[in-house]
């Protein structure tokens, strides 16, 4: 069965969807990704959907689900490279994907993840400092 590869980059996971997602593939991706987040203790998930040209409500829900599940496992999700037609379709379907961060391309998505994770780590170290004092 086809699987979408999940690449590990430091504390982030990178998923590049190069084919049009059909339902079973999307479900497998959801399960795999949650497993990977748990296994690698990733802090961020970056999903590149620049090659996806067709989207339906199911696919929109899966992306939303992935974001919520990662959030529970303490990882932020960034969706990058959405096509204009896909964005319009999702809005018309009434799926504004609240809780999902977005960026224009992979580079900007990575920068966004780094600032988000960086902020958290800075907070944690501050807390550590206060404990130490």
């Amino acid at each position, binding site marked *: 069965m086809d699987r979408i590869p999940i690449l590990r980059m430091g504390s982030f996971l990178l998923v590049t969807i190069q084919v049009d997602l059909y339902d079973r593939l999307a479900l497998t991706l959801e399960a795999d990704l949650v497993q990977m987040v748990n296994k690698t203790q990733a802090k961020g998930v970056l999903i590149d959907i620049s090659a996806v040209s067709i989207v339906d409500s199911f696919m929109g829900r899966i992306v939303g689900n992935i974001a919520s599940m990662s959030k529970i496992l303490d990882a932020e999700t960034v969706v990058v490279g959405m096509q*204009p037609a896909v964005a319009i379709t999702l809005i018309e379907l009434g799926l504004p*994907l609240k809780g999902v961060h977005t960026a224009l*391309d992979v580079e900007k998505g990575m920068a966004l993840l780094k600032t988000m994770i960086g902020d958290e780590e800075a907070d944690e170290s501050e807390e550590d400092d206060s404990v130490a004092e």
Partner: protein
Amino acid sequence: MSATSQKVLQKKKKNILEYWMSHQLSDDGLREDLISNEDLRIQSEELIDVLVDNLSETNSIDLHAESWDPVIEILGGISITRARQGFSPRETGNFVFALREAILQVLSEEIKSQPEVLFEESRKIGRIMDHLSVITFETFIKGREEVILRQTDEIAEISTPVIRVWDGILALPIIGTLDSSRTQVVMESLLQEIVETGSGIAILDISGVPAVDSLVAQHLIKTVSATRLMGAECIISGIRPEIAQTVVHLGIDLSNIITKASLASALAYAFKSLKLEVKKANVLTKI
């Protein structure tokens, strides 16, 4: 139309044209600014030629016969050009009515001696010309509608330019009312431009939108959400006090959208989030 009167008309084509022209030239509605007298004469002659040539005994009864097609084609052509040139409906109507007058005048001169035949022929001519007038009006209105449609398309295209105000900042001034079809155009052109330029910030300026109701607000929210999905930030600027009042009175929630009063403040915000700084240059005074 009997063969004799047909011959009469054929023979007296010149007279009909002269009568027709004199009718038209003496009419108050003569528009020399739109069409020159020579052009008018050429147009009229063409129509008389095709009308007289195509008249026959059978088709004067059957007004939908195929033999009328050439006449209708020429008449339609004249009518549509008149609609585009800006003639009023009355002026276009009088053009055809004057032709009826001219034909009747010629007929009455030629078959004066047989009142019964004259009556019969006049009735037929009347029917034919009524039919032609209806066609003239139909095509005239169709021509005007085409003009209106083309203008609507042009307005929709012209009024949605996406401007690149800075590297990474796009601005889209919306002028006129926002309806569903325009929002679609606005959204598509904005998103396309975001992809092409890789801009992170889009400013939607609504200073030119006369009124915002719940539907317009809904469209604005949709556009903003779509840009957010693309990974860009969308700022709405140019909100006038009256619009702020209506939005709040209608209970529309714009709290999760960045709104600014003017394009300048939106631009300032965009600069800030891109970590850009605008400074006055130091002017060195020479000693």
